[in-house]
C-alpha cells in the first residue's frame, strides 16, 4: 500500500494544509494576546507545525507494521504508546532547538520552557488523530483491494465455467460420440442405449448453471466417470482407468469442474494420440492438512503433443490460487511415459455432511 501523504497529491496537500493551519492558529493566538512579537510568533508557530508534519509522515510506518489482522491488540496498543512518546519528545526537542536558534532571544526561551506540558498533550492528540486517519485510510484501501480480488475471482470462475462449457460441447467429442451411437444402434442396440444415457447425463451435469462453485468430490467424480465411460465405449481396451479414493474424502468440497480439464488432457495425450492401450489412474489421499488428488496417465513418448498444452492447467492453477491463496497447489511430473498432475486441496474450506 502506498503512503497517502507522499504519493497522493490531494491527501498530501490536505495534510500539509492542516499542519500549517495549526501553526498559523497558534501564531495568531500568540499575536492577538500579545504573548510574542509578530516575527517570533510566526517563526515559532511555523517551525513547530512543519516539524510536526514531517515527523507525522513517519507515523504511517508504525500503522503499516501493526496490521490488526496479524498482531494482537496489546501489541498494537503497546507499540503506538511507545511511538507516541518518541514522536512527541522528538518533535518538541527538534522544533525547540530550531526555533531557539532562529529566534535567539531569552524572552522566547522563557516562553518555550513554560509551554512544554501543553505541547506534550498537543503532540499526543495529533499523534492519536493521525493514527486514526491512517487506519481509516488502510481500512478503505483493504476494502478496495478485496473488491478487486473478488471481481477478479468472479471473472476467473466465469472463465472456468465458460471453458468447461466449451469442453462439454467440444465438437470432436460430441460428434464422434454420436457417430459411435449411430454405429452401435446397428450392431449393439443395448450398448447404444447405455451410451445415449451416459452422454445425456454427462451433458446435463456440464450444461447446468451451477449456483455453487464448490461440489463434493463424489459429485465431481461421478461426472468424470460418465465421461470416461463414454470414451471407453469409443476406444474399448485402448482406455483403461482406475479410481483409488480414500473413503473419507468423498464428502470433501472441491471447486466444480476442476478435474474435468485434467482428464480431458489425459485422454487427449494418452488415448487420442496413442495406438496402444493407455491407463488413467486417479488417486485421492487424505493428508494431515489437505487432500491430495493425483491423476496419472500414460502417454506415447514418440508422438509429439500439439502445441498449446498446459493452458487448461494454467486456468486450474489460477482458480486454486484465487480460492485458497496459494499458487503452489498444482504440480505436474513427467517420468518416462507417465504424466501426473497433483492437486493439493487445503482443508480450510471445510466439509459438508
Amino acid at each position: 500500500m502506498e503512503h497517502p501523504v507522499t504519493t497522493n497529491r490531494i491527501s498530501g496537500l490536505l495534510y500539509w494544509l492542516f499542519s500549517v493551519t495549526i501553526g498559523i492558529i497558534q501564531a495568531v493566538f500568540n499575536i492577538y494576546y500579545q504573548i510574542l512579537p509578530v516575527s517570533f510568533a510566526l517563526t515559532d508557530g511555523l517551525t513547530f507545525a512543519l516539524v510536526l508534519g514531517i515527523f507525522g509522515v513517519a507515523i504511517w510506518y508504525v500503522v503499516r507494521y501493526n496490521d490488526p489482522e496479524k498482531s494482537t491488540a496489546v501489541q498494537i496498543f503497546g507499540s503506538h504508546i511507545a511511538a507516541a512518546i518518541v514522536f512527541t519528545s522528538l518533535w518538541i526537542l527538534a522544533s525547540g532547538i530550531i526555533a531557539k536558534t532562529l529566534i535567539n532571544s531569552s524572552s522566547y526561551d522563557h516562553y518555550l520552557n513554560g509551554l512544554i506540558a501543553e505541547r506534550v498533550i498537543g503532540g499526543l492528540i495529533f499523534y492519536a488523530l493521525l493514527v486514526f486517519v491512517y487506519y481509516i485510510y488502510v481500512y478503505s484501501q483493504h476494502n478496495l483491494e478485496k473488491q478487486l480480488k473478488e471481481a477478479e475471482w468472479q471473472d476467473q470462475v466465469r472463465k472456468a465455467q465458460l471453458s468447461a462449457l466449451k469442453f462439454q460441447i467440444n465438437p470432436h467429442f460430441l460428434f464422434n460420440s454420436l457417430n459411435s451411437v449411430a454405429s452401435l444402434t446397428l450392431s449393439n442396440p443395448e450398448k447404444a442405449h447405455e451410451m445415449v444415457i451416459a452422454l445425456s447425463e454427462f451433458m446435463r451435469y456440464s450444461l447446468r448453471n451451477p449456483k455453487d462453485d464448490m461440489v463434493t468430490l463424489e459429485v465431481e467424480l461421478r461426472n468424470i466417470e460418465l465421461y470416461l465411460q463414454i470414451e471407453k465405449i469409443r476406444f474399448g481396451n485402448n482406455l483403461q482407468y482406475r479410481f483409488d479414493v480414500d473413503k473419507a474424502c468423498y464428502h470433501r468440497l472441491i471447486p466444480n469442474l476442476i478435474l474435468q480439464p485434467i482428464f480431458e488432457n489425459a485422454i487427449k495425450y494418452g488415448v487420442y494420440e496413442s495406438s496402444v492401450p493407455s491407463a488413467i489412474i486417479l488417486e485421492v489421499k487424505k493428508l494431515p492438512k489437505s487432500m491430495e488428488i493425483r491423476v496419472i496417465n500414460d502417454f506415447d513418448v514418440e508422438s509429439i503433443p500439439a502445441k498449446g498444452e498446459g493452458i487448461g492447467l494454467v486456468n486450474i492453477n489460477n482458480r486454486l490460487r484465487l480460492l485458497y491463496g496459494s499458487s503452489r497447489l498444482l504440480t505436474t511430473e513427467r517420468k518416462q511415459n507417465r504424466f501426473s498432475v497433483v492437486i493439493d486441496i487445503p482443508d480450510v474450506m471445510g466439509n459438508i455432511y
Partner: protein
Amino acid sequence: MSKIKTLIIDDESLARDLLRVYLRKDDRIEIMGECANGFEGVLAIQELKPDLVFLDIQMPKITGFEMLELIEDPPAIIFSTAYDQYAIRAFETNAIDYLLKPYSFERLAGALDKVVEKLKIKTIQPEISQLIETHDKESGLLNRVVVRMGRKIQVIPVESIYYIESQDDFVMIYCKEGHFMKQKTMKYFEQHLDENHFVRIHRSYLLNLEFLAEIQQYEKDSWIIMTRQGVKLKVSKTGYANLKEKLNI
C-alpha cells in the same frame, strides 16, 4: 465395370464398423481392408493399391493429412471427420467429398456416385495434390515433419532438425534421427518453420540456429559455418546477412 477397391482408415473401431455396414449395402464397393492409424494406412495403400480410401483426420501419431504427404500417386480420398473447420474449408473446393460424422447412408451413397464419376475421367491426382497444398497454406508453423523410408515412417520433431539441404525437386532433412528425403520445396520449409530458429544461410541450406557452433570467413564474401555435429556448410553473402540479423552481430 469392376468394383471399386476401398480401404477404411479410422482409429475408432465403431466408426469403421458403421462405414463397413454402409459400404456392404453398395455393390459397387469391394472392401479391401481397414486400418486404425496412419502408419498402417501408408503401408496398406502401398500394398493393396486401393481405388478409394476413407480417411479420418484426427488419428494417433500422424494425421490424415500427414499420411497423404507420404503417398506417391494417391488414390481417391473421401475424408470422414467429426468436425474440422480447416478441413471443411479445404474440402469445399478440392476433396472428392468429405463426410461429417455421423452421416447417413444416403449421404455416403451420394459421395460414392461422385467417386464413380471421377474414376471414369481419372482426374483425381491433381486434385489431391491441390488439396494438400491448400492444407499447407491453411496450417501455420509445423511442429513435426513426417517422412518415410520404405516401410518405415519417421516422425521428426522440428526441434531435432539440424539443417535442411535442397536437392533437385526435394529436400534432405538432417536430424538427430538420421537424414531423410522429403518431397517438398525449400520454400515450403522456409515458410512453415519458425524463422527465429531456422535461417536460410545459402541457396541450398536452411539451418537450425540451435545447432550452430561457429562461423568462419575463408574468402571475401564467403563464409562457412560448423554445426555442433561438426558438419561444415557454405554460407552465401545473403545468407551471412540473414545470420547476422538473427544473431544480432
